[in-house]
């Protein structure tokens, strides 16, 4: 069966995250899905435990993190010079470098290269950057078929679905669902699933191997992302597990790599830090099964034409924010997703972006320009998709202080909403009241006495259950309890007892 035979039977468009409701609403829907919660809970717990074990093997883990963060900060600081150096090195090695201001421009460059070679399909290695720019949809509109070749991405694509995790995009699907997708969808786009396919993961993997092998052997153009690009040498690095990356990076004649401008490391030697940090943080392995490393074009080995597209698409907006720019250190390991109590319960799709979880909550709003202008409701809800527990910072291999950036972005959301609302929002009023209260000790003391009185009126068994009355306070208490304020504040107790020295 030809690869294009089923094209018109497929969904009209690739699904996108456009139209995802604000996080609280999307989270409520996700929380109601018990299958999703069970899958996520099991998967994140497994990978958390494994990661902790391989990280504990390295007594110098903190030193690696410090080096990783410092190298990435140097990249951001020297970005113009390093990008020019990379461009020169790639060009000298026979590659062609393109620059793209935004998604539209990057997609047009890819489509142009594919058309120029009269190709009608591309094979793709999993890449966050190409998901971000919605390359698949753009190519489809140009009549070009796109085949995702990472097993999980293929499951997502065949299921007309959206990814829910950076590393394991089909983490929300169980084996039976995957078997059904293979049975119902594979034949439409190529080699059908074997008869009597079981839901055993080995059988499912074998079905994927057979289905994709014909596409690998046939494809003339491949598209990839990049985990790292070495400015000094023009070398590109892609880490993977399945071998689909090796297939895409070595078999087709034309290779197009789309890479965010922040994915650099200055020198070859710097890889010694990241090739240790990334596998342990990401797949919880000492080393991932396959890493491909190449510089430009090598006659007789691999593609004869190599294009590198350097993508901005909002990254320079992120860079302009002195607090928020640390998000650009991210090496897309997804360790922060796996430890996040919010992500663990809602899954990735509730974040309405290709970048879910804690890193998504700080990266997506910034890529969408929150530093410069008001953003839509969904984007504005993302910095609140966190309990600020800090587990994400603890595991981040490049020490991104995600809670710090979350709080910073919440400030931007509030400022934008003050600027655009004539009547202040309840939150802005609350924050202003809190600021007024906390400004002097006397005001705080008065507030504490009032709270102690309130606690005696409404608290039963040491808990505040319902605060009476309508409005935001009443609504908040409909789904939460709060410990009742102590009858005596700490400050009052300290004054009365001389810090405990005068007895209780």
């Amino acid at each position, binding site marked *: 069966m030809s690869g294009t035979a089923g094209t018109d039977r497929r969904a009209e468009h690739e699904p996108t995250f456009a139209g995802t409701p604000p996080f609280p609403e999307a989270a409520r829907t996700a929380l109601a899905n018990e299958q999703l919660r069970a899958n996520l809970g099991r998967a994140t717990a497994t990978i958390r435990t494994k990661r902790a074990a391989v990280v504990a093997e390295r007594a110098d883990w903190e030193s690696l993190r410090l080096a990783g963060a410092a190298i990435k900060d140097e990249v951001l600081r020297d970005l113009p010079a390093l990008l020019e150096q990379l461009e020169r090195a790639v060009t000298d090695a026979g590659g062609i470098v393109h620059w793209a201001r935004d998604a539209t421009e990057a997609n047009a460059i890819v489509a142009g290269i594919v058309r120029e070679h009269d190709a009608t399909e591309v094979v793709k290695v999993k890449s966050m950057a190409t998901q971000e720019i919605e390359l698949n949809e753009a190519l489809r509109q140009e009549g070009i078929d796109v085949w995702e070749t990472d097993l999980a991405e293929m499951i997502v694509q065949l299921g007309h679905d959206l990814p829910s995790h950076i590393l394991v995009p089909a983490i929300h699907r169980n084996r039976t669902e995957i078997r059904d997708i293979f049975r119902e969808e594979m034949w439409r786009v190529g080699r059908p699933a074997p008869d009597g396919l079981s839901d055993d993961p080995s059988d499912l993997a074998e079905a994927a191997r057979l289905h994709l092998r014909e596409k690998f052997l046939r494809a003339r153009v491949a598209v990839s992302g990049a985990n790292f690009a*070495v400015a000094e040498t023009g070398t590109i690095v892609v880490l993977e597990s399945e071998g689909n990356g090796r297939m895409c990076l070595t078999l087709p004649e034309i290779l197009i790599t789309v890479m965010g401008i922040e994915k650099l490391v200055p020198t070859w030697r710097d890889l010694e830090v990241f090739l240790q940090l990334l596998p342990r943080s990401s797949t919880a392995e000492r080393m991932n099964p396959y890493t491909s490393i*190449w510089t430009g074009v090598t006659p007789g080995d691999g593609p004869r034409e190599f294009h590198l597209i350097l993508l901005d698409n909002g990254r320079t907006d992120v860079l302009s924010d002195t607090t928020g720019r640390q998000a650009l250190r991210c090496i897309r390991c997804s360790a922060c997703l796996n430890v996040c109590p919010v992500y663990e319960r809602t899954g990735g799709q509730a974040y309405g972006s290709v970048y879910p979880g804690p890193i998504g909550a700080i990266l997506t709003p910034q890529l969408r320009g929150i530093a410069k202008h008001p953003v839509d409701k969904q984007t504005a809800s993302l910095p609140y998709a966190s309990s600020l527990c800090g587990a994400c910072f603890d595991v981040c291999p490049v020490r991104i202080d995600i809670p710090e950036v979350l709080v910073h972005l919440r400030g931007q959301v509030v400022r934008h909403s003050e600027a655009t609302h004539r009547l202040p929002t309840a939150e802005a009023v609350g924050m202003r009241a809190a600021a007024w209260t906390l400004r002097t000790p006397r005001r705080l003391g008065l507030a504490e006495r009032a709270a102690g009185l309130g606690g005696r009126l409404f608290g039963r068994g040491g808990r505040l259950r319902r605060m009476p009355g309508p409005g935001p306070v009443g609504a908040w208490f409909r789904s939460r309890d709060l410990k009742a304020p102590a009858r005596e504040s700490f400050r009052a107790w300290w004054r009365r007892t001389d810090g405990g020295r005068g007895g209780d």
Partner: protein
Amino acid sequence: MADGASAPPSDAREVVLGRIRDALADRPSSAAIPRDYERSLPPDTDIAELFVERVSDYRATVHRSTAAGLAASIASVLTARGAKRLAVPGGIAEAWLEGIDVERVGDDPPMSFRDLDLLDGVITGCAVAIAETGTIVLDGGPGQGRRALSLLPDLHVCIVASSQVVGSVPEALARLSPTRPQTWISGPSATSDIELQRVEGIHGPRLLDVVFIED
């Protein structure tokens, strides 16, 4: 349409570089990169033993051999795997395959990918191996061939000499040249995409046999 599509691409370069310079107008301060991490394993580590242990950990099969017994070791691997037709890149020592009953298929001129896909296996050497991570690095040097050679056949037999094993990732990078295309291999192709259950064997060789030549 976004503004990007209408302007000539050469402009994009200047625009992006200009935006970056503007974004860095605060001139972030520079700091030395702390490199206090370990660059090698503790001196009393038995690197060869660790390599064998870690490669096995990733469910590759390790066969210990002496230099003199290499051909016999390779023969027993190929027999056990039932490999009859084998890709043999240039630079593989004739002695490695002496007296072994397999059809050897050379790659000069390069065979088509479809022909390569039909072979039972491939035999290669390697450029360097890393004990701590159980990794083998191929860089297209003698006895390794182009990258597709060790990718399409379902069985990869890799010969590693103990002198090629280093302890750590930093030591391996120091031995390698960025100008050569490299494949770092740590165990057979694998996926954990279905319920995080590890399955060996997706697109790369499903069987990785490492024949390790001890001193």
